[in-house]
């Protein structure tokens, strides 16, 4: 009985060896581990998932093309529950326990702001994919890199459009966190520059579901434009409650939310005529976009959002940097 067991075990390990051998040039070498935490649950879960899908598509493509420095790449991703404190613990764990070589950024400014303190402490490169708030980049960190344009310009298009059309007054609301605050601040400054009157500005805490009082105050001022520094959930809730409370501005736009296909799926007709802002669209004319969209749709069975593209792009950027440095050393990659 015992002998049979040992034999079976030996057989299994042989077959495992063969399997590994079959995997290509990487046999015998450890894969390059890249770590990240992503908001897979909690208030940032929606865009977070797109980011993760971008990372994983990039991982697959690199490995299909023979890996990096002759080694496979393996992503280790944990769920930070949209919580900066959880992200700090996870990056600590990624770097000290999982021994990842480098890290990719989590989703959102507040979480990146917190998590990057850990990667900086251990001198690991963090390629932040979706952290748009300028203040994150003004702390003098050496190992943190950015891929998207800053939060302050998210609402630029909306405000420009409103000013060109001769709209005069604007009301601004925002979630009381890093990115949304910066987006609102940018919108206010630009509106003032373009001669519009900012009639209202108020922040609300993360996780707010009932916006009645805020919207009633805005309604009483009857502004031409209403805009919000939002993430997904609050964008959905405000849009819905504006309709319920019969708030009808000439123009209404949000930051994150309006750009995701789910916004329309959730709200249906209520979502129409709402402006959204995006960092990337699939009909841009950069090389490689068509291939990316096709590969993405094949892997995940749905369209990419700009968060997917930013995640994918940041990951490719890190890979390219490692390739050019021909090393995993943080100093050389920089």
């Amino acid at each position, binding site marked *: 009985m015992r002998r049979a067991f040992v034999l079976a075990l030996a057989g299994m390990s042989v077959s495992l060896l063969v399997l590994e051998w079959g995997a290509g040039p990487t046999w015998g070498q450890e894969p390059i581990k890249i770590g990240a935490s992503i908001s*897979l*649950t*909690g208030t940032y*879960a*929606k865009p977070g998932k797109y980011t993760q899908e971008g990372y994983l598509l990039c991982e697959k493509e690199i490995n299909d093309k023979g890996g990096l420095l002759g080694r496979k790449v393996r992503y280790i991703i944990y769920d930070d529950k949209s919580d900066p404190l959880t992200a700090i613990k996870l990056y600590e764990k990624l770097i000290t326990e999982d021994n990842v070589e480098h890290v990719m950024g989590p989703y959102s400014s507040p979480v990146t702001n917190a998590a990057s303190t850990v990667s900086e402490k251990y001198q690991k490169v963090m390629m932040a994919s979706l952290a748009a708030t300028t203040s994150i980049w003004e702390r003098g960190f050496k190992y943190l890199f950015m891929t998207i344009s800053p939060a302050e310009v998210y609402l630029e298009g909306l405000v420009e459009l409103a000013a060109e059309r001769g709209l005069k007054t604007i009301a601004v609301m925002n979630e*009381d966190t890093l990115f949304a605050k910066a987006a609102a601040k940018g919108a206010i400054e630009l509106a003032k520059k373009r001669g519009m*009157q*900012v*009639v*209202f*500005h*108020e*922040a*609300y*805490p993360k*996780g*707010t*579901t*009932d*916006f*009645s*009082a*805020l919207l*009633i*105050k805005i309604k*009483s*001022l009857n502004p031409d434009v209403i805009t919000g520094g939002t993430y*997904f*959930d609050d964008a*959905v*809730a405000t849009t*819905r*409650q504006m*309709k*319920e*409370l*019969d708030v009808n501005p000439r123009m209404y736009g949000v930051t994150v939310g309006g750009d995701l296909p*789910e916004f329309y799926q*959730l*709200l*249906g007709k*209520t979502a129409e005529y709402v402006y959204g802002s995006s960092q990337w669209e699939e009909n841009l004319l950069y090389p490689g976009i068509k291939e990316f969209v096709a590969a993405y749709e094949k892997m995940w069975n749905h369209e990419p959002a700009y968060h997917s593209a930013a995640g994918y792009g940041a990951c490719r950027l890190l890979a390219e940097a490692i390739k050019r440095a021909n090393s995993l050393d943080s100093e050389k990659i920089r």
Partner: protein
Amino acid sequence: MMQVQITGTMVLQIVVSGLLAGGLYALVALGLSLIFGVMRVINLAHGALLMLGAYTTYWLFALFGLNPFLSLLVSVPMLFVVGAVLQKLFVHRVVEAPELSSLLLTFGISIFIANVAMLAWSSDYRSVEFLTGSFILGQIAVSKPRLISFVAALGLTGLAFLLLHRTKIGKAIRATSQHRDVAQICGINVRRIDVITFGLGAGLAGAGGSLVSTMFAVYPEMGLIYVFKSFLVIALGGAGNYPGAFFGGLLLGLVEGLASLFLTAQLSEVIAYIFLVIVLLVRPAGLLGGRT
């Protein structure tokens, strides 16, 4: 920046919205208060049960197009069964144990349920787009889903009161809540009452979930804020005091609304808790006192 002129109409609008929200808080808190009153068990899984109610409504609506308010007829009995099973399997073990045990147990149950929901249905936000828009009365907008939910919440709360005060089983529940040992000596099967009470509490949470789903997004962790609000409501009204839970709910809705109207949305939660502290200082047993 223009100064917001707060007019009478605006205050009235907020009072209406606040009461509408408060009715729902009351319904959810009543279930929690019932369970606490009878068993001294603080049910942290209440939010998870609410979430199950919301998903019941969502799926019945998404798959069969069932009217979300009619789906109460499914979600309430279903959650009653879920609650009764939870009680039979787990919760009865902590009924006479220190409160910390019940906290730990129900916290565990709530994490389990939320994570199973996440695996089964993902953490996507879903919504029941059934009724949107509002009735306009003069200058006041009354949101349709909120109004109907409010009426349904009042109806259910009324039914629960009738059950507690007019039926034999209700009287047995109240007797057990007043004095467990004496109730047992009088021939009440308290174990059975526990099962029924937990079922009822869960049923009320499920009803709350069904109604919430017509207004807000449905996702696995949606119940959490309702647990916190329910604690506030219960502390305001008096622990184990059922009419107290009702008035506490309405009051919380009002306070939150008015605070964000006169101050800012950021401060409304702070004000709600400051209000609680003041109530507890002045009337430590809650506005309407302890158990009834």
